């Protein structure tokens, strides 16, 4: 009896029976009404969920026969794995949505009844195996929607609902016509029967019926441009109803399409094009949208289009017999992952938007006072953007992999482009919310918050479940997230410094655990980054405030580093990479000043990530495995993979041209975070480059590419140095300096030789320590002097002597002057380039070194040596201008000590590095250049001298020439005419006109134009003129286009 109660038929009995009973119960009293309503809803959810569990445990699909006859004669329904999944998820969301909608529902039994039967209708659409029955359920769902839409009574909402009705009635009319014609053509209405005789459905009528059916289903999913009606409803409806439309109706229709898709085998390209267009167009137009719910509408439409696109492309592959291991799992992950992601995240966001109540995201209040809500908001956004660890990410990962497998790179580009646009508007919204001055006045906890939080929680759980399915190699990769979550939970109750200590302990323990068994280069990196990270992070003690979530995010960030090194597959690597990106994003976002720089940071990070994603997918397609070690054994066809991976990592490393995100993000983060980002996190792309670059070594034809990469590195060095020189903000200068220094490392890696890589690792260690010191020092300076502008600073040598010493050590180490570490690095680098006969590069890199000197001198001079500006006098007299706090000094001196130690005992670092590098080159396939021992043992001055002389000559010539042409530059006069009158300042002013040409913000301007151009494409939205009749005309034209394109017969 209990078993039969759990039969899926119970869902319908609960839905319908519950609906029919409600008016009766209404007369009994409100409590009964509420109890009945929620009982029926949760019963439906329970039955479907238990059914799903039973199927997951290996039960058979249940066929529900009605009328005691077999399917062709009577209607039958099926509850299989997919059906179970869809119904269970929809029912759960419906239950949550009912909680959210409760203020609107309570007391109106009519609305409850509509809601209940509506949910049942979605279940019916999912389960039924009869075409006409599908139509009936579609109508139930539609009418439920129409009724629920009337809950919002503004004229705009009613008008939107009417537009919605017009379009959907057209669609369902065509659905009915198609059903009838299909029956005429085939003699059956049973979906299985139709699928079985798919081949036989021919002739003009059969073809027409199929196309109309397809059109009806697609129109219900709101294809571009026939979707304005849907958007208006999303914009104006009550959030709970909009969520239902976005999630529930779409789920039902999508599943109908999913079921019927084999019928449309001949039209797959057509569907794919339509959906691809919709996906891109929706996200492009979304860029210009300011209204939250409409924005979510665009996103929703895009997501549904993406799902259909994925479905069609994967099924096409299946039909073509493209080999891909575990195709079923991949398919399940793509469809299930994308679906669940959309379902939970979109519903959650709609609810949240409704609870917040601001119509435009630009006017959103700050959620800072509601940390839990903020967390949920972040989770939902990240999930929609398709980032790990949420189900949508695994879906997208598998999708891109599958597409790479069949060589559909065009589709990959399209999908990723659309996703990027989507991420832009979503995170822009998040940024606006973070920066909003006004705290949120969120209404009742029960109706607004709980469903959102539950949705976020479910997303996390689903994401982790999907991770297992996606074949992530170890769940320890999620240790950082777990640690972060643990810290986040206790975050509100502890004081900041306790949290800091706790975080450090946690990171130490977790880091040690995670880096267990890492050897070679990974071990080295793990040791370097972890210890560096801990040291720098310990500077956080200097802040005594609570810093909500700061430490949790820091824990995630730091622990993700060893996790990244543990990655065994591309997937592992990518997931941790993304976690690092996100953690950095949120860390930077904590600083209010970073607001304008958040979006570029995320955008470029995502672009980088998408390059990586495609790169890994290409790798898997080429080599058949996802393992990172296989990167080393790729053959000549690895070039594409290399280019993709290298592009991704170069973007992330801030190579010239794509560096625009870097200075802002590094400079405007909180001071200790900047140190960490620049010193430690910036090494992540270097790890990636080193991992991915095996490829280039193994495949001969990639050497040219590596050379190109070397040039990019060089340009980055010069550009970074030039911009640093010009910069008036200390932190920004350091950020540019970071960029420049990373350029050296890139060059070193690009050498693809033993010596090159040794150099790279050496520079990594050097840069880590140097930038750590410098940023922390600046943190101290900012703390004490209250400004970061050179114009405001000066003469700090006396008040901050310890800081001055640390900075001096760091600057010397960085500049490459003997006797500190930097010298060895530069020397090795030039030597390596000479070995590769890259003389031009070598010369220019020396020129760049000269530029580097200049800005470093300016740093020391501007902060410590030059006299204190007069307007700052009162600071020192007030006594606030004193030495930095000990918590900041200690890490600096720890790092300085390390620099000194390693400078005087280079073998301490060289030997492990050499030992780590050796295995990579021991196979000896490609073996150019000398080994380290040789360099030390063998002095080859001639080429080096030539290089140095040439460099100096050309540098002088270049500067002279530039000065000649630009001496009358206005800026020259302006900047020297004022306050900085000491000799060194004039000296720098002298360089201004020469370098000005280098440092014009060409890249920023370029990217701004790109952004503006992309956003201008959003003028596509002009098609939505708000007129229901126009929308109806679009729908008709959509049908016509589908018909004439699909039926291959010219008009």
């Amino acid at each position, binding site marked *: 009896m209990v078993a039969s109660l759990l039969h899926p038929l119970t869902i319908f009995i609960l839905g319908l029976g519950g609906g029919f009973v409600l008016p009766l119960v209404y007369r009994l009293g409100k409590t009964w009404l509420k109890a009945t309503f929620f009982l029926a809803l949760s019963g439906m959810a329970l039955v479907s969920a238990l059914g799903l569990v039973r199927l997951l445990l290996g039960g058979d699909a249940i066929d529900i026969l009605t009328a005691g006859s077999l399917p062709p004669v009577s209607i039958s329904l099926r509850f299989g794995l997919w059906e179970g999944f869809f119904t269970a998820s929809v029912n759960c969301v419906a239950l949550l949505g009912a909680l959210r909608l409760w203020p609107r529902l309570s007391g109106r039994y009519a609305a409850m009844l509509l809601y209940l039967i509506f949910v049942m209708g979605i279940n019916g659409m999912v389960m039924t195996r009869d075409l006409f029955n599908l139509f009936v359920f579609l109508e139930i769902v539609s009418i439920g929607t129409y009724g629920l839409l009337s809950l919002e009574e503004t004229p705009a909402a009613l008008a939107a609902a009417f537009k919605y009705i017009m379009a959907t009635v057209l669609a369902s009319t065509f659905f009915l016509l198609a059903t009838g014609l299909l029956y*005429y053509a085939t003699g059956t209405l049973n979906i299985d029967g139709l699928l079985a005789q798919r081949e036989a459905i021919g002739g003009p009528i059969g073809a027409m019926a199929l196309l109309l059916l397809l059109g009806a289903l697609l129109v219900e999913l709101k294809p571009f441009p026939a979707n304005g009606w849907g958007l208006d409803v999303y914009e104006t409806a009550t959030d709970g109803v909009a969520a239902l439309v976005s999630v529930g109706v779409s789920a039902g229709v999508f599943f109908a399409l999913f079921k019927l898709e084999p019928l449309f085998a001949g039209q797959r390209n057509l569907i794919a094009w339509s959906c691809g267009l919709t996906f891109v167009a929706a996200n492009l137009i979304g860029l210009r949208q300011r209204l939250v719910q409409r924005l979510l509408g665009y996103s929703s439409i895009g997501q549904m289009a993406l799902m259909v696109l994925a479905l069609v492309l994967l099924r096409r592959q299946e039909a073509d017999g493209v080999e891909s291991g575990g195709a079923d799992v991949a398919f399940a992950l793509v469809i299930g992952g994308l679906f669940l992601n959309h379902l939970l995240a979109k519903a959650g966001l709609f609810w949240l938007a409704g609870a917040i109540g601001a119509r435009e995201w630009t006017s959103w209040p700050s959620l800072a006072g509601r940390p839990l809500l903020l967390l949920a908001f972040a989770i939902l956004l990240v999930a929609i953007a398709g980032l790990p660890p949420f189900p949508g990410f695994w879906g997208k990962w598998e999708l891109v992999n599958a597409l790479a497998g069949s060589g559909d790179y065009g589709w990959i580009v399209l999908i990723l482009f659309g996703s990027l646009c989507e991420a832009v508007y979503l995170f822009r919204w998040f940024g606006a919310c973070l920066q909003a001055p006004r705290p949120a006045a969120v209404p009742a906890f029960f109706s607004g918050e709980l469903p959102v939080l539950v949705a976020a929680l479910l997303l996390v759980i689903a994401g982790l479940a999907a991770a297992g399915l996606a074949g992530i190699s170890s769940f320890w990769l999620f240790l950082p997230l777990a640690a972060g979550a643990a810290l986040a939970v206790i975050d509100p109750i502890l004081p900041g410094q306790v949290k800091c200590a706790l975080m450090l302990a946690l990171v130490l323990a977790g880091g040690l655990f995670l880096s267990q068994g890492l050897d070679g280069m990974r071990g080295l990196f793990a040791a370097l980054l972890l210890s560096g990270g801990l040291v720098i992070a310990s500077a956080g003690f200097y802040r005594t405030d609570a810093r909500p979530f700061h430490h949790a995010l820091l824990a995630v960030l730091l622990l993700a580093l060893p996790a990244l090194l543990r990655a065994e597959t591309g997937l592992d690597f990518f997931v941790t990479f993304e976690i690092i990106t996100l953690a950095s994003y949120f860390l930077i976002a904590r600083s209010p000043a970073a607001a304008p720089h958040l979006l570029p940071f995320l955008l470029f990070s995502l672009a980088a990530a998408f390059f990586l994603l495609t790169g890994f997918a290409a790798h898997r397609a080429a080599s058949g495995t996802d393992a990172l070690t296989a990167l080393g054994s790729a053959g000549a066809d690895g070039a594409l993979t290399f280019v993709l991976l290298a592009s991704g990592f170069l973007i992330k490393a801030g190579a010239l041209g794509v560096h625009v995100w870097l200075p802002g993000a590094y400079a405007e983060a909180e001071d200790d975070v900047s140190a960490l980002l620049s010193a430690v996190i910036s090494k992540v792309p270097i790890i990636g480059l080193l991992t991915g670059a095996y490829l280039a070594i193994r495949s001969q034809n990639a050497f040219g590419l590596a050379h190109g990469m070397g040039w990019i590195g060089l340009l980055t060095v010069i550009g970074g140095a030039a911009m640093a020189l010009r910069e008036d903000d200390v932190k920004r200068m350091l950020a540019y300096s970071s960029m420049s220094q990373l350029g050296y490392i890139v060059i070193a890696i690009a050498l693809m030789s033993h010596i090159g890589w040794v150099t790279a690792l050496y520079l990594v260690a050097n840069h880590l320590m140097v930038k750590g010191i410098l940023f922390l020092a600046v943190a101290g300076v900012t703390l004490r002097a209250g400004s970061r502008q050179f114009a405001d600073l000066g003469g700090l040598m006396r008040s901050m002597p310890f800081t001055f010493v640390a900075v001096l050590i760091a600057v010397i180490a960085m500049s490459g002057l003997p006797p500190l570490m930097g010298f060895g690095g530069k020397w090795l680098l030039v030597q390596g380039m000479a070995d590769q006969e890259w003389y031009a590069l070598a010369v220019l890199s020396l020129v760049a070194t000269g530029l580097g000197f200049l800005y470093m001198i300016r740093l020391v001079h501007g902060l410590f040596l030059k006299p204190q500006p007069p307007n700052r006098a009162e600071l020192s007299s007030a006594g606030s201008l004193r030495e930095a706090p000990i918590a900041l000094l200690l890490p600096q001196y720890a790092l300085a000590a390390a620099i000194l130690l390693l400078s005087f005992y280079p073998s301490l670092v060289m030997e492990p590095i050499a030992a780590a590098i050796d295995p990579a080159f021991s196979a000896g396939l490609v073996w150019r250049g000398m080994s380290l021992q040789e360099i030390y043992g063998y002095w080859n001055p001639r080429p080096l001298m030539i290089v140095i002389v040439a460099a100096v000559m050309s540098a002088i010539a270049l500067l002279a020439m530039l000065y000649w042409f630009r001496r009358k530059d206005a800026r020259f006069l302006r900047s020297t005419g004022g306050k900085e009158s000491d000799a060194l300042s004039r000296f720098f002013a002298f360089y201004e006109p020469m370098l000005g040409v280098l440092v014009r913000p060409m890249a920023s301007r370029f990217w701004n134009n790109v952004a503006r151009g992309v956003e201008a494409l959003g003028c596509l939205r002009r098609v939505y003129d708000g007129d229901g009749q126009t929308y109806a005309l679009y729908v008709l034209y959509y049908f016509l286009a589908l018909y004439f394109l699909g039926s291959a017969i010219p008009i």
Partner: protein
Amino acid sequence: MGFPPVSHLVLATGCSLVLIGFYGMLTHRNILRIIIGFSLIDTGIHMILVATGYITGGTAPIIDEALSLDAAATRSVDPIPSALVVTAIVIGLSVTAIMLAYAIRLYETKQTLSLDAFTESKW
């Protein structure tokens, strides 16, 4: 008489009715007229469906003195489209009712039935 088969005529009429309905739905700005257009489309679709179920010389699939059980297989028309259309008619009425209710509500908000007044949300 040289006429095309009867169901052809009904089919063609149904199609034309759908077109007429489209025209009405697309050209009139009055909401009620748009709804009239929709109901014409609905009727047209029903006609098309009924026409496709017709069997030459068929009679209603109701067993009585005029149609024995044995003769039914050869003489009766296809019952399925009829059954579908009965359902569809009821659903059509439901949809019409909802649309009209919306028309009334829209009228109450702005005292007009012209669609021009209801294009607030766009882009």
